[in-house]
């Protein structure tokens, strides 16, 4: 996510809360999310889990079929970004300030990758997030993420 107009806000009318499944229908069908075919998996009070299916054109190395690490960044960017709106129960325009990913192991050929983004703290202007990626078993993570998002505009009205 980068800065921009509050287009997603139109999906979350004032006082109507925030539905990550619905919003992912926009973020996961068009643009970069659509290219990666990002799917909604589940959410809780402060987390959202999304997933991307393995695809030949998303690999880093044709010999091993290992998924390109950047696919994990995009997955974690979207999942953590949505975790903030989920915790707020409202959309607010924001931009990724920074994002760090530790790659514990590669995501193997043919395997779906899941990314869970968690908003663990929220101030008036900053959303603090972390998360992890896995191949179906959250106890065997393949990457950890942490980052911050900055609010770029007022409350969606």
């Amino acid at each position, binding site marked *: *996510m*980068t800065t921009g107009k509050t287009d997603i806000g139109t999906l979350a009318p004032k006082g109507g809360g925030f539905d990550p499944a619905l919003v992912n229908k926009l973020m996961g069908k068009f643009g*970069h999310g659509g*290219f990666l075919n990002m799917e909604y998996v589940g959410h809780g009070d402060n987390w959202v889990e999304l997933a991307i299916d393995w695809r030949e054109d998303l690999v880093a190395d044709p010999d091993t079929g290992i998924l390109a690490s950047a696919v994990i*960044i995009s997955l974690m960017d979207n999942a953590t970004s949505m975790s903030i709106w989920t915790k707020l129960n409202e959309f607010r325009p924001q*931009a990724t300030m920074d994002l760090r990913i530790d790659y514990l192991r590669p995501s193997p050929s043919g395997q779906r990758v899941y990314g869970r983004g968690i908003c663990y703290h929220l101030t008036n202007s900053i959303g603090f997030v972390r998360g992890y990626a896995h191949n179906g078993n959250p106890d065997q993570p393949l990457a950890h993420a942490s980052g911050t998002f900055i609010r770029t505009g007022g409350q969606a009205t």
Partner: protein
Amino acid sequence: MSALYTTLPPYARALDMTVVDEIDGAPVIGMPFADRVQGRPGLLHGGAISGLLEIAAIAAIHQALRAKGSDSNIKQVNVTVDFMRGGLSQMTFAVGEVTRLGRTMANVEARAWQDDRDKPIAMGYMHYLIKAKREG
């Protein structure tokens, strides 16, 4: 002077990234704007910017290894991306700089920009493990 590293991974080719130039011996990667790299309407997705930074970093390190006559493999350990400006709907460039190339690890810094290289839209800081190819 070793030949410029130009064989990009399938992921990079899928996003239409190509080697367009070189700066200080490191390949400059270009990525045209298209729907598949778009986040909010008219703006680049942070993940696509990060992908461009990672491809530039990988290209820089391969180029540096090649210049040393090394055929070692690399394994990425982590990345930190700082986003400084929104990416507009135009061509984006990135180049990596290998700030240290040791026997077991390398530090790489990558910069992404659009019109002005002195106004980066994002910077990436990466660590890579250097893995010598096994004999036989």
